[in-house]
Every structure is written in structure tokens, then in C-alpha cells.
């Protein structure tokens, strides 16, 4: 199946490509797994362009890399190429599943950048460059993104080891039965745990701002402008308006933003490397820490991906419980987001506190059922870990049927017609929905631009096809609509909750086999859900062992930041703060 010549024609037709591109398809990745096509590196741009224009695959959802050095599985037994780039494409007009393309990276680690076809590949390619060292030809701004310039090596490569490296896979043998406690910092004192790239000197290092577009001072030779000087201003990283540790590097002229670059990575812990050391189940509590406002959705997305890979069934009651938790989470996230958009607009604290009042009640419910308010760790492969405690259902039903509708209406009354909010929000941060999609933006942002694309309807997972709910859309794609779409979505979530709480059957909550010894069968899978912030996907590859071979998180916060620069240019500094707020990021998920 991997022979280039033997099967060239058939998969090209499966892909819907014309004869002239048939030779670009080298074969399929593997027969038994999700279909994925292996494309010749020098033809990838042609294939992407054709798929986008002729077949309607306009949304590059996921772009990542896998390092197959030392891969033990038989699926790749005869292949020497070590690095493989994975593209997952979707169609926002048709809905439905994805097309997966694989490109084996040639010896010199260079392949063409997809940014000319999908501008949304920007941040994802930078991440691959940073963590794997793959160079993308033609990328407009190929710098490290999550790590700094003085970082030695590319950490996601399988042969890279961190400072306190113990073993390739957990559980570590030093813990039992002879588990003498050792303090890590005694083994390797602080400051001795850092190495620099060869020939690189930390003392002479200055952070580069010499990249486009922020470095370019505008020229006003036409005489129409007063000759003013533009300056570079850092917004953040330590500022409440950045919602965490996040920096916007801007070039401003007066109050107007000429260029803006997001700078991130302050919270980077290489979640994905940790994920490859962990067993399948161990990753579950780690997903809580991605988007820490929405641990239930993160759990669900990861559980779905593993269930798809390992073919695990979920009992009926657990499906309902998952929907209930996910929709409560969506309300928590959207009210939080509304509150903090208002905060960023200068309405300090009062709207935010009113908006998150109900959040307390919901978190109390989460705590009662799972034991923690935010780090819920509630779902398992094949269901949820525990059934509801006594009295929970009544309280949840009270919230869904009485309290939440009332509270959302009240919030609506307080904010929606507010003249200041309208004045600040209308027409600010505009980007057309076509641009948003080409930048791989997902979630409420594109629905506020008028496109009714919601994975719960477009590619239903769990039991979402059973509920009666609408996908609200708004036409203007500005700050105000991005605020209001969240209000409308929260109201739809209440509708789903009412139905789910009414229809939930009795029964088992956890299917049989999903314990800590799970060995997922060899293969690869990409699975996504409509998380409150957008499309949250997990790309997993397995070689049949107890650990994932590759564990990648396609996080909506991170990829939605593609649009931050284009949306902010031309607006005032004060608007850029709200534009960021309306993207709704959580840095735990951005930096991973």
C-alpha cells in the first residue's frame, strides 16, 4: 500500500482529484485505519489548492507533525522517513467528515508552506517548526513560537530528552517497590538544567523584533500625512487585559494599530510530550488543565478520540451525562466570556460578577458530582466515572428550568441594549467570514459572522442528533455580535439541558474496558468537538502500546489567534484589548 507506483490511480480518484494530479498521491497511509492519503511533498500545494477550490474543503482544521523514529508498529514497518506532516481538511458548507493528508518530510526537513493556500496554517506551521524543526518554505514569519530562541533542540522529537528525564514511558520503575523519595532539584540543581544551542550566547541575545510586519515603519512620502513616528509597544505579557500571560507586540502610530503580532508560550509545559509519556488514561486529568474553564469539554473530546481509536462503546446514561456536563460548561464559559468582554471594554467587574454568579452554582454541581470545581476529571473511556449523587438531578433541573433562563434574560436586559456597549462594539474588529474561515477560526467567532457552522450539527458526536436546538448566527462579524452570539448560544444550551435532564434514562454510567491498562490498537485518529471556544480536536497515533505514540491537541484558543493581527489593524489600542477579549482565549490552552 505504500509503494508509490502501484496504487497511484485509485486513491487519487477517491480524493476526487483529476488525472493531472493523480501522480501527486503516493498511496494511502494504511488500509485498516481512517482513510488518509500520502501526498508527494512537492505537489502538496497543488493538491491543497484543488481540494479547496474544486471540492469545497475550505477549512484547514488541523496541521501537525508526527515523529516516527523508533515506531514499533507494523503499519509503518518499511518506511524510513521519520517526520510526517498531517493535514485535516473539512468543508464548512457541506459539513461531514475530514480528508486527511500526510506528507513525508524529505531528508533536509523542508516542505512547502501551506500558508499561501490556507493562511490559517500560519501558527500551526510555526508550532511544528518550533517543536519538530521542520522548515516550511515560503512561510511569512517562520520563527519559534512557544519556546524562546535560546532553547536547545526541538522537544517533540523522540530523541530529545528534558532536564529531569527519567524514562520514555510511565509508570517509572523508580516508584515501586523500591521507591526512595528523591527531590528532583537535588539531582540537578537549578541553572544547571539549561543548555543552549551550539554557538549561542545568552548574554549577547536580543529579542528580534526585526520581522515583518511589526518592524516596518510606515513611509509617508506623499505629503498627505504629518510625518509622525510610529513606535513598537508591548501590550502585556503581565497585564490583566491579556487574560493570562500573553503579549501583543504592536506597532502603533498615535493610538492606531499598524501591525500586531501575538507572542505566546509563557505557560508552555509541552503538554504533548508529557502526553506521549503518559498512559492513555493518565492524560485525562492533564486535559483538565488545557482550557481550565471547560475541563468537562476537554475530557469529552479526549475520551471521544480514544473511544474512536479503540472502538469503545458508551452506555446511554453516560451519553446524557456527558451532554449535560458539556452544556453546563458552555454556559459557564459564555457567561464568563461575556463578563470579561465587558471588563475589557472598561465596565470593570460589575457585569463580570453578575455574569458569573450562576457559574458558582454550576461549579457547585460539578464539585458535587466529580469532586472538583474546575479540574473535574470526570470522564473515562466508555462513560463517566461516577453516577450522580443524591439530589443532584433536582438541583440541576432547577437551574436549567428556572434559574439560568432568568439569569440570562437579566444579563441580556442589563447589557444588550446598552448604548456604550453598542458604540464601542459595532463595527469594531471586523473581518469577513471568508477570511475567518481561511484563517482556520472556529466556534462563536464564525457564527457571529453569519456562518451556521457548528460541529454538533455538521458532524454530530455523542447524542446531539437527538436534541432540538438551533445554531444562532449574527451577520456583522464585529465585537458586538461576538458578545451577543455567546448570549444566544448560552440560551440554546439551556434548551439542550432541559431536554437532556428530562430524557435521561437510568442505567450504567461506565462501559467495560477503558481502565489504566488500555492498549489502543495501532492506527491514528483525529476527532473533534464543538467546545465553547471553537473546535477542540485531538489527533492521536498509536503503535499498540499503553502510551500514545502521538498526542496532539488542536486547541481553538491557539488557532483563533491567527485572526488577532488582521482583526486589530486599523483600530485603536483600546479596541485591540476588546478584540482579544472577544476571541476568548485561555492561555492554558494556547500555550499547552
Amino acid at each position: 500500500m505504500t509503494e508509490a507506483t502501484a496504487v497511484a490511480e485509485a486513491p487519487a480518484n477517491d480524493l476526487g482529484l483529476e488525472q493531472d494530479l493523480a501522480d501527486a498521491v503516493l498511496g494511502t497511509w494504511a488500509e485498516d485505519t481512517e482513510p488518509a492519503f500520502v501526498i508527494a511533498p512537492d505537489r502538496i500545494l497543488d493538491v491543497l489548492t484543488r481540494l479547496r477550490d474544486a471540492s469545497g474543503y475550505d477549512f484547514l482544521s488541523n496541521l501537525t507533525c508526527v515523529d516516527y523514529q523508533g515506531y514499533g508498529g507494523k503499519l509503518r514497518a518499511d518506511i524510513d522517513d521519520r517526520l510526517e506532516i498531517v493535514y485535516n481538511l473539512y468543508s464548512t458548507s457541506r459539513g461531514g467528515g475530514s480528508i486527511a493528508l500526510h506528507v513525508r518530510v524529505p531528508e533536509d526537513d523542508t516542505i512547502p508552506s501551506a500558508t499561501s493556500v490556507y493562511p490559517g496554517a500560519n501558527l500551526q506551521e510555526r508550532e511544528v517548526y518550533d517543536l519538530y524543526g521542520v522548515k516550511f518554505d515560503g512561510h511569512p514569519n517562520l520563527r519559534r513560537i512557544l519556546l524562546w530562541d535560546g532553547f536547545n533542540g526541538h522537544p517533540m522529537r523522540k530523541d530529545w530528552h528534558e532536564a529531569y528525564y527519567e524514562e520514555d514511558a510511565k509508570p517509572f520503575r523508580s516508584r515501586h517497590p523500591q521507591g526512595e523519595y528523591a527531590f528532583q532539584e537535588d539531582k540537578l540543581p537549578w541553572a544547571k538544567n539549561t543548555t543552549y544551542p551550539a554557538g549561542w550566547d545568552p548574554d549577547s541575545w536580543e529579542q528580534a523584533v526585526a520581522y515583518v510586519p511589526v518592524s516596518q515603519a510606515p513611509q509617508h512620502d506623499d505629503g498627505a500625512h504629518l510625518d509622525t513616528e510610529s513606535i513598537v509597544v508591548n501590550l502585556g505579557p503581565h497585564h490583566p487585559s491579556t487574560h493570562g500571560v500573553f503579549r501583543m507586540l504592536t506597532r502603533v502610530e498615535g493610538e492606531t494599530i499598524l501591525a500586531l503580532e501575538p507572542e505566546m508560550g509563557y505557560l508552555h509545559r509541552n503538554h504533548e510530550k508529557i502526553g506521549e509519556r503518559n498512559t492513555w488514561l493518565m492524560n485525562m486529568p492533564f486535559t483538565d488543565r488545557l482550557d481550565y474553564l471547560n475541563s468537562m469539554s476537554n475530557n469529552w473530546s479526549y475520551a471521544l478520540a480514544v473511544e474512536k481509536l479503540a472502538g469503545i462503546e458508551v452506555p446511554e446514561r453516560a451519553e446524557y451525562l456527558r451532554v449535560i456536563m458539556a452544556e453546563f460548561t458552555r454556559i459557564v464559559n459564555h457567561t464568563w466570556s461575556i463578563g470579561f468582554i465587558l471588563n475589557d471594554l472598561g465596565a470593570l467587574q460589575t457585569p463580570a460578577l453578575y455574569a458569573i454568579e450562576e457559574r458558582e452554582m454550576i461549579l457547585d454541581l460539578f464539585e458535587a458530582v466529580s469532586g472538583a470545581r474546575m479540574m473535574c476529571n470526570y470522564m473515562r473511556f466508555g462513560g463517566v466515572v461516577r453516577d450522580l449523587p443524591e439530589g443532584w438531578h433536582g438541583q440541576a433541573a432547577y437551574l436549567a428550568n428556572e434559574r439560568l433562563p432568568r439569569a440570562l434574560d437579566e444579563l441580556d436586559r442589563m447589557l444588550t441594549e446598552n448604548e456604550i456597549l453598542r458604540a464601542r462594539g459595532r463595527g469594531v474588529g471586523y473581518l469577513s467570514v471568508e477570511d475567518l474561515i481561511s484563517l482556520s477560526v472556529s466556534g462563536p467567532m464564525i457564527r457571529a459572522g453569519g456562518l451556521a457552522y457548528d460541529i454538533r450539527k455538521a458532524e454530530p458526536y455523542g447524542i446531539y442528533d437527538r436534541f432540538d436546538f438551533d445554531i444562532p448566527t449574527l451577520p456583522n462579524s464585529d465585537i458586538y455580535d461576538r458578545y451577543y452570539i455567546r448570549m444566544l448560544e448560552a440560551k440554546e444550551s439551556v434548551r439542550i439541558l432541559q431536554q437532556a435532564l428530562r430524557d435521561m434514562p437510568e442505567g450504567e454510567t461506565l462501559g467495560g474496558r477503558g481502565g489504566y491498562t488500555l492498549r489502543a490498537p495501532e492506527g491514528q485518529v483525529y476527532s473533534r468537538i464543538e467546545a465553547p471556544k471553537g473546535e477542540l480536536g485531538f489527533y492521536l497515533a498509536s503503535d499498540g502500546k499503553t502510551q500514545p505514540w502521538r498526542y496532539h491537541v488542536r486547541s481553538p484558543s491557539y488557532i483563533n489567534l491567527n485572526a488577532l493581527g488582521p482583526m486589530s489593524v486599523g483600530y485603536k489600542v483600546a479596541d485591540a484589548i476588546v478584540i482579544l477579549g472577544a476571541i476568548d482565549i485561555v492561555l492554558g490552552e494556547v500555550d499547552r
Partner: protein
Amino acid sequence: MFGTGLLKGLGVTLKHALDTFEDDRESVPDRYKGSLELGNNRRIIQQPIDQEGLLTIQYPEEKRLLPERFRYIPMLIWDSEKHEDRCTACGICAKVCPPQCIWIVRDSDENGKPVTRCSEFYIDAAVCMSCSFCVEFCPFDAIKMNHDYELAVYDRNPQLVYDMEELTVPLEYYAALWPTQYEEEQARRKEEEEQKRKQEEEKAAKAAARAAAKSAAAADESATAAKPKRSAAELQALAKERAAQRQAQAADGGSSDDDAATAKRARMEELKRKAQERARQRKLDAGE
């Protein structure tokens, strides 16, 4: 008309202010209903789900009522009925622990043969992520989640590295923290023991019959008993080394054995007090 939106919004804030104000004027405000009075302004508060107006808990005098399933840092159960640790040093908790914060040393008898008991058990609370996997997968109900969240200390090492003594709590403490789960567990354990006893009786009867037939052959096999991995001299040296280490540690901390004993007693008292408090709280809760 311009400004109506603003006025509407201000109406909402006014309503919130009035709700809170009204509630505060009552002799017992809503937020204190159903809370447990501990005297001296100390209370344990349960936030009612239909609470209107603001609810502020004046920590540390006032605290929230924690739900039974609340999880923080694991604790080890001392079975006060059987007077033994429930832990058998099987190591499953250390294997499932996602951040690998559990260290177990399995004990051995005088011949160096491993026994089902741990001699040391550490949890690095600075690393623990409170996921509760250790509890989920423990086959002996020996490790449970504690509700005690006030763990702030000045140094991460060694103060947040809990040893066995610090982790162990009596069964009654656990029963007070997790009443529902405790009862389910006790019922299950009793049933299991009953079954085990029956099986063993049957087994014994069978074995007796077989033993009579094979008594001659058994005599030959008795020679193949397990040999100790380490010699007795080696073991003694090891034990000495460990004792020396412990003494050195104690000397570093500046505490003598007496101090340690007092501290232990004080901690047990503290645990007992907390368990009683918790039990009272539950009763009050159930009474409503």
C-alpha cells in the same frame, strides 16, 4: 430613545443591590440558613442554590461545606477494627498516578522476602494533581481522598513531601468524611469476606482430602522453598543504614523522638476533632 438601554441596565444593578440589602437586614440572612455555627463567628456555610443577592464567605472564619466527593490530597487508611494498615504495597496507585508523585518501599521480612506491607510511603503533595486515580484503582480501599485543603507551608521540600505517618488516618475519620461511600464500601467488604471465608472452608476441606492422599509426595517438595534474595548480613547493614539516615534527618530538623511523638499525638487529636466536626455537620445536613 438614547439612554434607555443604560437605564435598563442600571435597573438590574439596583435590583441586585436591593436583594443583598434586604437579605442582610433579616435576623438570619439567607446565606446563613442551614449553616453550621461553630461559635466565635466561625461557620460552615452551604450556599443555597436559590440564593439571591451576593454571597460572600468570610474565609477563614467562614468556610464552605464541602461535598462528600471533594478530593484534595490522598490519605492512607488505618483499619481501626483490625489494627493494621490497609495498604499492601501492591503499587497500583504508584503505577496509575499521572504525575508519578507516589513513592512506595515494600517491606520485607527477616529473610528478605517481600511482604504485603509498605515500610515507607511518600506522596509529594506539590506534584499531586488531585485526580483521584489512586483511589479509583486501589483494590484494598486503602487510599482515599482527604478534604483537608489548608496545607500551605514555607518550603516545598521536605514539608510538602508527606510520609506514611503524615498520610495515615484512622478509619473513623474517613467514615466521617465520606459517609455514603463508606457505608457502601463496608457492605461490599463484608460480603466479600463472607464469600472468601466460604471459599476457604471449601478449599480447606478439599485440601485436607488431597493432603491425606499425597502426604508422601509432599515431603520431597518441601525442600524447594523460596530463597532470600539478600543475605541476613546484608539486610542488617541495610537496616542500620536506614536507621542512620533517619537519625540524621531527625537531627537536621532539630527534633528529638519526644517532639515527634508529641507532634503525632497532636495531629491525631486534630484529626479526631476534624472528624467530629465533619460528623456533626453531616448530621445537621441530614436533619434538614
